[in-house]
């Protein structure tokens, strides 16, 4: 049950323009059910290399070019998505690369390729046709050579040579469990084709790409969004839901110097007495759940059987029965030693403070604070009280003259009981409390025996209408 979309690579919200005004793309076809229908139309056409799919009108526009064609340019678009045939945009080869239609034009020794429609300096039998894709001087494999795409060279001494384009399998190796794998292999270890992640057939599943942006669930490439032992995918075989992919390992441990993707950056500092974010880097020795239930050893399969076998998760340090987060859950967790409770979080491990060291102190609730601290407890710079961006302030030097709203210093114009605060320069965070603490000699007013016990007088009371009918 493969989808015709399996042959295409999706660029969401992108449009491909041809800068040559003499070249006109195909007409918009509006009577199309969905993107799969477009793919069915474009797939068999040799002169269709890509198509636009309009999300609102459900129309599609077939294109004879891709982003690698001359005079084309990618543009952001709120209306359409761009689907391009994988063979034309993939930078690696599947099998022996017979289908490769990329634009590499140099041999493995760096020799420039001779154009296929040229007989000089090397005469040959190949005639370029739309079907065999012998285009310009790009590397191709018209004779199914096992070494992959090749070309005649412009060097008189070397007639032809392989181009050394890597197979997709070997182009990207897998570190640890492959959560970071972003290669372009789209078949499983048994050779079954992968199901696209953005499709729910033949297998429905929870891994919708736009919910897992950090997992790069694009097209139907092998990925590891759930902390499995290695990259996998749902298969297009209705009888086999999912299978692992056969990918080469890069080695036992995380690289020290690989291009550090964001999560590698996050994993640079292991923590031992607290956990950051989801706690995937927690390496402490807490071994009970929040509720005090002892954890089951990771190398044990009772009382709970599980797949998190330590030797398959070498990078996750599944030692003894320590709380860990090998699968990207919300916090460190463990299988519990209680038969009736399979897994539980270890929330009692404190979160590492994300707060900077306080740079001053305030009395009471800080309404009289006139110090010079101007950053929030997370270290974000404060916005000037007289500024209007990134946040339009409700409190300004004119609207609250008594509050001492100077420059971007922390203040407490509204008498916030939790201390001085400020609008922040982070567009995503309107306001936050400051890098200040109560002065040592200060005890906050007690809640428990306040001067006048707060009486409870307002709330969304329930209007139980008394029945007026007799």
């Amino acid at each position, binding site marked *: 049950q493969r989808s015709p979309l399996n042959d295409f690579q999706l660029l969401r919200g992108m449009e491909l323009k041809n800068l040559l005004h003499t070249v006109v793309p195909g007409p918009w076809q509006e009577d199309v059910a969905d993107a799969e229908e477009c793919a069915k139309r474009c797939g068999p056409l040799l002169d269709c290399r890509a198509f636009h799919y309009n999300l609102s009108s459900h129309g599609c526009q077939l294109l004879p070019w891709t982003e690698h064609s001359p005079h084309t340019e990618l543009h952001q678009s709120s209306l359409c998505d761009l689907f391009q045939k994988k063979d034309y945009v993939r930078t690696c080869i599947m099998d022996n690369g017979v289908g490769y239609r990329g634009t590499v034009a140099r041999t493995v020794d760096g020799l420039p390729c001779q154009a296929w429609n040229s007989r000089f300096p090397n005469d040959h039998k190949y005639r370029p046709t739309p079907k065999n894709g012998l285009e310009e001087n790009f590397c191709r494999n018209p004779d199914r050579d096992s070494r992959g795409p090749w070309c005649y060279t412009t060097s008189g001494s070397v007639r032809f040579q392989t181009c050394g384009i890597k197979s997709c399998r070997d182009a990207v190796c897998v570190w640890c469990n492959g959560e970071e794998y972003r290669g372009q292999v789209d078949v499983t270890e048994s050779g079954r084709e992968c199901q696209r992640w953005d499709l729910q057939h033949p297998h429905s599943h*929870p*891994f*919708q790409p*736009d*919910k*897992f*942006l*950090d997992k790069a669930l694009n097209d139907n490439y092998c990925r590891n969004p*759930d902390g499995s032992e290695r990259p996998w995918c749902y298969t297009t075989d209705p009888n086999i839901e999912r299978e692992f992919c056969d990918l080469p390992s890069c080695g036992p441990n995380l690289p020290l110097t690989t291009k550090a993707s964001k999560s590698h950056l996050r994993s640079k500092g292991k923590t031992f007495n607290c956990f950051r*974010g*989801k*706690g995937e880097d927690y390496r402490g020795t807490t071994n009970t*759940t*929040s*509720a*005090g239930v002892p954890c089951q050893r990771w190398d044990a399969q009772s009382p709970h059987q599980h797949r998190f076998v330590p030797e398959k998760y070498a990078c996750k340090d599944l030692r003894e029965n320590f709380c860990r987060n090998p699968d990207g*859950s*919300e*916090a460190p967790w463990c299988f519990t030693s209680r038969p*009736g*409770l399979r897994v*539980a*979080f270890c*929330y*009692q491990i404190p*979160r590492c403070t*994300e*707060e900077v060291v306080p740079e001053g102190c305030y009395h009471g609730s800080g309404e009289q604070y006139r110090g010079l601290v101007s950053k929030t*407890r*997370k270290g974000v710079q404060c916005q000037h009280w007289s500024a209007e961006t990134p946040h339009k302030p*409700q409190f300004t030097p004119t609207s609250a003259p008594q509050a001492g709203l100077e420059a971007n210093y922390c203040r407490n114009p*509204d008498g*916030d*009981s*939790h*201390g001085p605060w400020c609008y922040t320069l*982070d567009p*995503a*965070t*309107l*306001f936050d*409390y400051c890098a200040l603490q109560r002065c040592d000699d200060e005890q*906050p007013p*007690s*809640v*428990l025996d*306040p001067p006048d*016990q*707060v*009486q*409870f*007088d*307002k*709330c*969304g*009371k*329930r209007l139980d209408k008394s029945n007026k009918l007799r």
Partner: protein
Amino acid sequence: VVGGHPGTSPWTVSLRNRQGQHFCGGSLVKEQWVLTARQCVWSCHEPLTGYEVWLGTINQNPQPGEANLQKVPVTKTFCGPAGSQLVLLKLERPVTLNHHVARICLPPEQYVVPPGTKCEIAGWGESKGTSNNTVLHVASMKVISNQECNVKHRGHVQENEMCTEGLLVPTGACEGDYGGPLACYTHNCWVLEGLIIPNRVCARPRWPAIFTRVSVFVDWINKVIQLE
């Protein structure tokens, strides 16, 4: 909830991760705002893309298309003042209030619940075998003073925390209930007085349970909702 019984709590929400799994509780304090525990939210500033709150059902695993079920994505998180153990979640859109989904009132600032007040916890969390936790469970708890609570907890209970009495029969919140409400019926209205936070042991007999005292942070809650 350990030692509870099936019940309804129209302001209690289920926090769902990207795979749709329940992992914490929460309380609907405004149509577009949910209050939950800091322990439940892994980031104060990274967007919880793909996370949702589910309301309007008592089932832990509601069937797709279940009547009254509302699923609303979380768009922003606001971590509370230091020591509050609170997080406010802003929802992508206001929920629809009806017989199955209701807001819970916030207490007045600094309000101290009188000892002996009857309250209730609610959640889909671990029941330690005392029931099948496939539907929402509630349990009644009685408030005790911090003074009494600190006898057992040896002075560790903060003023911004509150306690309920430890019953002989194990009764209380547990794994998966965190972030949910301790609601007290006052003046004809249910009020969110406490927020369920992880205690060292679930429902330990004769051991008072500790909750975050919401009234100490009502000014922050109102400020965020008003300013945002």
